[in-house]
Each structure stands twice: as C-alpha cells, then as structure tokens.
C-alpha cells in the first residue's frame, strides 16, 4: 500500500480544474500552476526510481481482497511503469516551460494549459492503472484532450487532421472496448494481475483477443498498417503539443500497453511475438521511406516517429521471440533493454526536434524546408540543439540514439535474425541522410530574403531546448552498468519474469 501513487492522477487533474476555474479572473494562472505540479511529479518519480522499490500498489477505496480475489481498483507502479512516468514528467515539464512563450499567439491560453494537464493526467493514469477498464477510461481522457489540442489553432488543416485522428481513434477505442468485453466474459475479472491468472489456456481464444488488442493499441501507437493518422495529426498540432504527442502519447497509450499486455498478462507465444516483430520491422522501414521525400519539417519528423517506434517494437519483439522459443535469456534481456532504452531516448530527441521546428515556425512563419535557409547565424541555440538531436536520432556515437540502436542491432545478431539487424542498420543510414537534408536546407546555405529580422526564440523556449539537448548527451550515461541498473534494469526484470507480475501485485 503506497498512498502517494494516486497523486499522479490527482495533481494534473486538479491543475486542469483549477486552471479553468481561476482562469476566468487570472489569465496567466495556467503557466504558473502546471510547472510546479510537473516539477513535483518529476521529483516523485525520481524518488521512486532511486528508492528502488520494485512494485508498489494502491487500492482505491481501501477494499481488501476477498478470498484472494482483488475487488478494489488497483493502481500499480513497478519498474516498467516508472520509466514511462519518468518520460511523461520530463517531457511534460519541458513542454510546459516551452509553452509559456509559445502560447502567447493564442487567445484562450488557460484552456490550452487545462487541456495539456488533462492529457498528462490521462497518460499518467494509463501507466499506473492496474485494471484494464480504468486503463481504457484514462486512455480516452488522454485521447480526447489530444483531439482538442491538435485542433487548438482552429485552422483548416488542423480541423481536418483532428477529424481524421478522431475517427481512427474512436474506432480503435471501440475495438479495445470489445476486447475488454471478451476478456471479462471469460475471466470474470478486470484486474490485470487477476486476468493473468484466470485467462483460459485456449489458443484460438487467446489469439482472437490478442488480434483485437494489437489492432486497437496498434492504431493508438501508429504501427505501420495503422499509421495514416499520425503524420497529419502530429504535424498540424501546435509544436509543443506535437512534441508531447510524438514524444510521449504514442508511447504511453500505445507501446506501453502492448508491452504490458503481451509480456505480463498474456502468456508469451510464438505467433504473437512474430506478429509484433513484423509490425515493428514494417514500421521501421516504411516510416523512414515515407519520411525521405517530405519537405514539411514537422511532417518529416512525424514520419520519423513511426520509424523510430519501429525500433522500439523490434527490440521488444526480438526479446519476445527469444523468450517464446526458450532461447538464451541473456539475449532477450539485451534486446528488451535496447527497446526500452530507445523508447526513453526517442522521447527526448523527438521532443527536441519538434520544439526546434516550433521555434523556426514561431520566428519565420514557415516550416517548409525549401523556403528556409541560413538560420545558423540567426538562431544559434535552435540550430545547435537541432544538430544534437539530428545526430542523436541518426545514431552518431557520442549521443544517446547510437547506444540504444547498437544494443538492438547486437541483440538481433546474437538472436540469429541477421536480416533484421541489416534492416536496422540500413534504416539508420537513411535516417542520417534525411536529417542531413534538414540541416542543409534549414540551417546552412543562403538566407532567403525577408529573414533579416529573424532572431533567436524567447528565453523559455530556448531554455527548454538547451535542457533537452544536454539530456540527449546525458542519456548516453545510461549505458554505464551502474546507472543502467538503477533506471533500466528494474523494467527489464519486470518483463523477463513475465509470469510473476500477478503474484507480485496481488501478494502485496
């Protein structure tokens, strides 16, 4: 029993509520509320991680278990959840910091902060929910807030993107709800840990539910056959929100749930592991090929998000394949570590790249790479931080992206999947080419006429970008065994000891 866990939902929900109530009289209240609350939650998360308590549970309402059956709503944090909590808090805080200057262009600033807090509350809720229906409710809270935020500027393309996003998001939510219905039908419980115990060992049934769940959460995570909404929604949204969507949302409500469900709740089986690996590989390859031809900076970044999430899913998928075929557990561990590490890294560098794009658009009014150029002299901070992020995403050595990609590729080779390793290397090279193009057209070369008055972005925006650029380098430290043992190892252990999730959660 840990009474601090509900604060993850209470604090951002309270922030959203207070912002709307007080915002009628105090226009600026949103910015001053969201930053302290995010700082508090970041502190809480770091406290959890450093304290190294593997699993803790909060029962909402305080109902004790009846005859070993959990009746209360569980909120659970463990190693895997704390990585996601860290990502949400970190990127959320920096995005809020960036927004202080950026949202000056909007008339209803307090509504922006209220929606951002709501989205954060939803994502925190998904990560700590120990109950599949609560997971669904929080997922919907996060989705609805993100639908509204994508269209925050109410321009033509934003409305169009949000409508597409809403339709596909709505369909995916219904598929998920249907899967929840099937799970409840056969197991008679909604508690994740209890489902793991009660799930009947009938293969066709498990495959059917798995397919529904992969379809639903794959749509939320924009895996490749389901990716069509992502480039529109992520490129149309206001830039800090794009950073939030690409950096955090698709991980917290898509990838995280897939990992949790298929490694901790369902028994790992070969077919599902193969499906997940194939989806990851497809995302990785198709995403990067679609990204190469783009000239809209944010659209290019959105396609790269699909591709980079492919790496994460590939890492996890290889781990599942190795576990399913009873291969070497060390290889599975390496692979899953790589996947989770890349997830952490991607949230940092992709958030930074979207913030860079936002700064450029804020000062020059365009994000078309053909119309940009020569910003190196005019916007030094944006230019340097975007250089760091571009190198990190393409996997150039001292930066964090290199280490996670190398781990995934090494694991693929050790597991004997040489083709997957080859694809991962090729995709990484194409990514580098694509970001060289960005650097060349946006920051080098001739400055077009009319850019004489362009100057560096305001203080809050620059500060957020500098912190993220430093983090791009600092995250490389996670490769050192001692540091890795604190941050990544607990999460990997949760996934490797798949069957012990339920005993650990219910036993507390």
């Amino acid at each position, binding site marked *: 029993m840990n009474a601090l866990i509900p604060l993850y939902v209470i604090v951002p929900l309270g922030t959203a509520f207070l912002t709307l109530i007080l915002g009628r009289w105090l226009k600026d209240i949103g910015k001053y509320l969201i930053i302290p609350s995010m700082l508090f939650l970041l502190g809480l998360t770091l406290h959890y991680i450093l304290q190294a308590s593997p699993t803790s549970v909060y029962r909402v309402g305080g109902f004790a278990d009846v005859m070993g059956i959990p009746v209360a709503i569980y909120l659970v944090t463990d190693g895997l959840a704390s990585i996601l909590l860290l990502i949400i808090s970190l990127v959320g805080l920096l995005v809020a910091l960036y927004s202080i200057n950026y949202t000056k262009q909007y008339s209803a600033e307090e509504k922006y902060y209220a929606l951002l807090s709501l989205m954060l509350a939803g994502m925190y809720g998904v990560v700590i929910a120990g109950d599949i*229906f609560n997971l669904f*409710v929080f997922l*919907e809270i996060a989705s*609805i807030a993100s*639908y*509204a935020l994508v*269209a925050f500027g*109410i321009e*033509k*393309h934003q*409305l*169009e*993107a*949000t*409508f*597409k996003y*809403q*339709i596909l998001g*709505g*369909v995916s*939510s*219904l598929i998920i*709800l*249907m899967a*929840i*219905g099937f799970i*409840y*039908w056969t197991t008679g419980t*909604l508690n994740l840990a209890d489902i793991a115990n009660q799930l009947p060992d009938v293969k066709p049934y498990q495959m059917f539910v798995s397919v529904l769940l992969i379809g639903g959460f794959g749509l939320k995570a924009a895996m490749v056959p389901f990716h069509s909404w992502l480039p*529109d929604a992520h490129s*149309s949204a206001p830039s800090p929100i794009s950073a939030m969507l690409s950096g955090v949302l698709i991980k917290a409500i898509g990838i995280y749930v897939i990992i949790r469900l298929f490694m901790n709740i369902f028994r790992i089986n070969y077919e599902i592991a193969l499906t997940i690996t194939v989806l990851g590989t497809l995302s990785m390859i198709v995403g990067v090929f679609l990204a190469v*031809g*783009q000239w809209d900076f944010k*659209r290019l970044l959105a396609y790269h998000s699909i591709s980079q999430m492919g790496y994460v899913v590939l890492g996890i998928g290889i781990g599942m394949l190795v576990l399913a075929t009873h291969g070497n557990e060390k290889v599975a561990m390496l692979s899953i570590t790589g996947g989770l590490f890349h997830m952490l890294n991607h949230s940092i560098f992709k958030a930074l790249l979207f913030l860079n794009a936002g700064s450029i658009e804020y000062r020059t009014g365009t994000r078309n790479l053909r119309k940009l150029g020569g910003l190196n002299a005019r916007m030094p901070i944006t230019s340097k931080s975007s250089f760091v992020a571009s190198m990190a995403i393409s996997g150039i050595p001292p930066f964090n992206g290199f280490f996670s990609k190398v781990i995934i590729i090494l694991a693929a080779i050790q597991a004997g999947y040489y083709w997957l390793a080859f694809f991962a290397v090729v995709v990484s090279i194409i990514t580098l080419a694509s970001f060289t193009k960005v650097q060349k057209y946006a920051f080098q070369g001739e400055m077009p006429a009319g850019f004489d008055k362009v100057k560096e972005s305001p203080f809050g925006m620059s500060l957020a970008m500098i912190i993220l650029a430093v983090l791009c380098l600092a995250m490389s430290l996670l490769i050192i065994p001692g540091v890795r043992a604190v941050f990544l190892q607990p999460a990997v252990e949760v996934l490797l000891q798949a069957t012990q999730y339920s005993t650990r959660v219910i036993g507390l």
Partner: protein
Amino acid sequence: MIPFVLCFVLFMVGLFGVIMLRNLIKIVIGLSIMEYSVYLFLILIGYIDGGTVPIISECFEQGPYVDPLPQALVLTAIVIGLATKALMLSVAIRLYKHYGTFDIREMNKLKG
C-alpha cells in the same frame, strides 16, 4: 447466440458507414452505431435468462441476478462516448464553416 450475431452485424453496419460514406455527419453516425453495438455486446455478457435486478432487498425478488458490472462499464463508456461525439460534431461544424460542405472529398489540404 443470435443476439451476439446481430450485435456483430450492427458493428459491421457502423464500420461500413465510417469507411464508405463521404459525409462528415454520416461518418459520426456510423461511429455511434459501432459504439452502440459494443455497448449492447457488453450488456449481453452480463445477461442471464430470467435474471433479476442485482439489488439485495425485500422489495425485489431473490434469485439469479444479472451481472451488474458490465452495466457499470457501459454507463462509463456512454459518458466517454458523449464527450467524443460532442467534440467530433463541433469539429464537423467548424469544418462546415471553413469549406461550406460536409463532403470529405472537398477537404484535401493534407496530402502525402
């Protein structure tokens, strides 16, 4: 078994609407139909032939109770559905103001 099949048919009708129709409002209606079929499915899971209301009281007859939990789930899901639909329709109205039509073929600012 027949109710479940009909439920599935309703789901497919809604999906057909979402995929094939070109009018924004009709797409939203299609999504609503899908949603209702899923609610119906959840209610059917908890249904028992001849079951009574799950309230233990002298005013109601005792006996096999229908499962109240899916009903609670559906109530929650309806509230969520309301929020989604409201937002979706308001976006559709905004789009109508911009384009003067509900036809999605006319809305092609985003390509590629």
